[in-house]
């Protein structure tokens, strides 16, 4: 366990660390405290929530007969399952900023378990929609997962780390399409239960997973590289912040809203597809439900590699081109994702449809990874809330696209896919307006006014004079130092010197 009394040498950590004690490498096969253990707990808890949120989708053919659902009921339940977390992701963002990720994550998992078990009681369409809505709240673990990895790993690899954690978590949406039918089959064949009971029993497994991971997070997890939040606040290493300030700095930063929109058309599109793709292949190409389920699972499982790929591409681009490279990578992959979605809608043969679906999944999921390669830099003070807002934007976009394109009979599902792809391409253009004064944007170089803007000036501007006098901004200044990697290789020479007035290393830290 990390020593909380203050003599924290870098030797205590299993991995090489920076000045904030964030790890500089990712050692996937390790489970050691604090970095890798937190990494694994974070992504597994998020993975579990994805499993239970979409657990109903492959079982809909059974559930719709049990509960006498209509097409609109099924559509509404799909929208409900992703809308619940619009609010919960925001709240989780705040909790992470004020209370820290471990409790937020465990809290959500252990309170989602009862909701999952409550499927035993569902007897009507209203009950079904309500339960799916409440299970959907658990998707907020995305925010705690990304926040937790962002405080454990350093800026230069954050794209890759967030991409792997997010991607492996999102994979739950694909795994569930295989897991739930498998459990259902086992329970009906070997358990002898009738179909209308068996699907309810199948849900117990995701319920148990929630309990197991929730307990593990509490027992084995740690909030920050140096210890848990309670202990760190007492020793004065982490300042206690105020909600109103965190909110103000998140909401008044225009970049937050650009990413809110953008993420709606990478993650949002992905969530929407998780709900409609199996049925689309089943109906359009007359496949067996089992086969359609496997294809649907492939879409979700591509997250295993596609999202990390996006994060990694973002990191690689940033080595040479800095933040500008990250922005370009995001625009390229997200636009390509939209283009392949258009192609998927227009595909008339099964092989072309599968090929375009795979390319589309890679594009959209890489875009998700690339987005979270940029988010940790938008703000240091309000990291949690901005992560939450972006995540909420993803759900909002998902619910919106499901409602506009896949809940009416005005156009076919195929046309819906084409229009959704076109909308995604159009809504990715705003990434060009995101400008960091110290690093530039897609088309503009770093601002030159006032002798140049630095990372320190950007991140310290979130604290006012009074707060700076109290030294509350030191965490941000340390982060700013470490984020100089975002200048790219061309500006490395100027990077090493800390500008005057920003003495980041407080006296008492060795």
């Amino acid at each position, binding site marked *: 366990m990390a020593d909380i009394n203050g003599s924290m040498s870098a030797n205590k950590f299993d991995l090489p660390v920076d000045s904030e004690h964030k790890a500089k490498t990712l050692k996937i096969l390790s489970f050691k405290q604090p970095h890798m253990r937190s990494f694994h707990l974070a992504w597994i808890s998020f993975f579990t929530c994805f499993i239970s949120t979409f657990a109903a989708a492959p079982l809909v053919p059974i559930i*719709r*007969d*049990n509960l006498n659902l209509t*097409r*609109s009921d099924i559509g509404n339940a799909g929208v409900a399952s992703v809308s619940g977390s619009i609010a919960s992701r925001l709240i989780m963002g705040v909790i992470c900023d004020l209370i820290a990720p471990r409790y937020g994550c*465990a809290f959500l998992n252990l309170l989602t*378990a*009862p909701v999952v078990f409550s499927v035993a009681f569902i007897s009507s369409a209203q009950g079904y929609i309500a339960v799916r809505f409440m299970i959907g709240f658990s998707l907020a673990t995305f925010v705690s997962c990304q926040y937790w990895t962002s405080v454990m790993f350093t800026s230069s690899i954050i794209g890759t780390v967030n991409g792997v954690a997010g991607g492996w978590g999102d994979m739950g949406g694909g795994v569930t399409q295989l897991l739930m039918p498998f459990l259902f089959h086992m329970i009906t064949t070997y358990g002898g239960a009738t179909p209308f009971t068996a699907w*309810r029993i199948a849900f117990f497994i995701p319920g148990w997973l929630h309990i197991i991971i929730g307990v593990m997070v509490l027992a084995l997890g740690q909030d920050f590289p140096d210890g848990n939040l*309670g202990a760190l606040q007492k020793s004065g290493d982490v300042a206690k912040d105020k909600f109103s300030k965190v909110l103000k700095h998140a909401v008044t930063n225009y970049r937050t809203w650009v990413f809110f929109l953008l993420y709606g058309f990478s993650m949002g599109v992905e969530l929407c597809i998780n709900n409609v793709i199996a049925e689309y292949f089943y109906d359009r190409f007359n496949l067996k439900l089992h086969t359609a389920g496997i294809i649907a699972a492939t879409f979700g499982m591509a997250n295993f590699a596609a999202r990390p790929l996006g994060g990694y591409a973002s990191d690689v681009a940033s080595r040479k081109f800095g933040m500008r490279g990250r922005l370009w990578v995001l625009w390229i992959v997200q636009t390509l994702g939209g283009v392949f979605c258009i192609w998927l809608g227009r595909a008339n043969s099964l092989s072309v449809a599968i090929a375009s679906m795979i390319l589309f999944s890679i594009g959209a999921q890489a875009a998700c990874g690339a987005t979270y390669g940029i988010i940790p830099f938008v703000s240091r003070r309000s990291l949690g809330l901005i992560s939450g807002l972006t995540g909420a934007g993803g759900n909002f976009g998902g619910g919106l696209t499901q409602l506009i394109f896949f809940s009416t009979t005005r156009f076919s599902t195929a046309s819906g896919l084409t229009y959704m792809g076109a909308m995604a391409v159009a809504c990715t253009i705003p990434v060009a307006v995101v400008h960091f004064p110290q690093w530039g944007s897609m088309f503009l170089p770093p601002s030159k006014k006032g002798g140049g803007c630095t990372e320190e000036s950007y991140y310290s501007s979130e604290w006012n004079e009074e707060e700076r006098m109290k030294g509350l901004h030191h965490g941000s200044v340390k982060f700013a130092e470490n984020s100089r990697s975002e200048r790219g290789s061309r500006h490395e020479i100027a990077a090493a010197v800390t500008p005057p007035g920003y003495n980041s290393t407080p006296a008492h830290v060795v």
Partner: protein
Amino acid sequence: MAILQRFLLASVFVSCLVATCYGGVSFKSLHPTLTVTATHKEGVLKAGLDNITVTWALDPSAPAGTDASYKTIKVKLCYAPVSQVDRGWRKTKDDLTKDKTCSHKIVAKPYIAGGAVATATWTVQRDVPTAKYFVRAYAHNASDMEVAYGQTTSTEKKTNLFDIEAVTGRHVSLDIASICFSAFSVVSLFGFFFLERRKTRIAEAK
């Protein structure tokens, strides 16, 4: 003559392929030559509990030789139009390989020529959903293609429909298990929370 025979054989072969290319038999092409009845108790039938007795026979007024190709009779439970509204997975389509109207099999028996009335009794299965139904029997030929049918309702499928009520799928044991595990989950969360609060308070007091 030999050439003509070969040509005829080839065209028959090709037309068989064409038939399989274009999918299954068209329902509109079938004639209602079977008389089908279904008897059951009054009121709503309960899945898993109540029985339906079906009978089928060749319509006495059908011309002789109509049933020459009938090999098997498959009797099915079919959705009435009112239960198909807003439920695309129960849609009626003319192509019988794509038609989803009759998704529940009641019984399949070999066809016995001679005009006798065949019967079968069936307990409503536990996976039958709550809906309005009628019964239809298809006559299949040796290659298992539909060649004729008969149903208990009119052509518009509005008369002589009956209701089936599905099982709920709920069980008291499942409810109890659900409550127990949920309680365990909530207790673990608050247990850990208070335990940790106590630990930090003790550490503070030192």
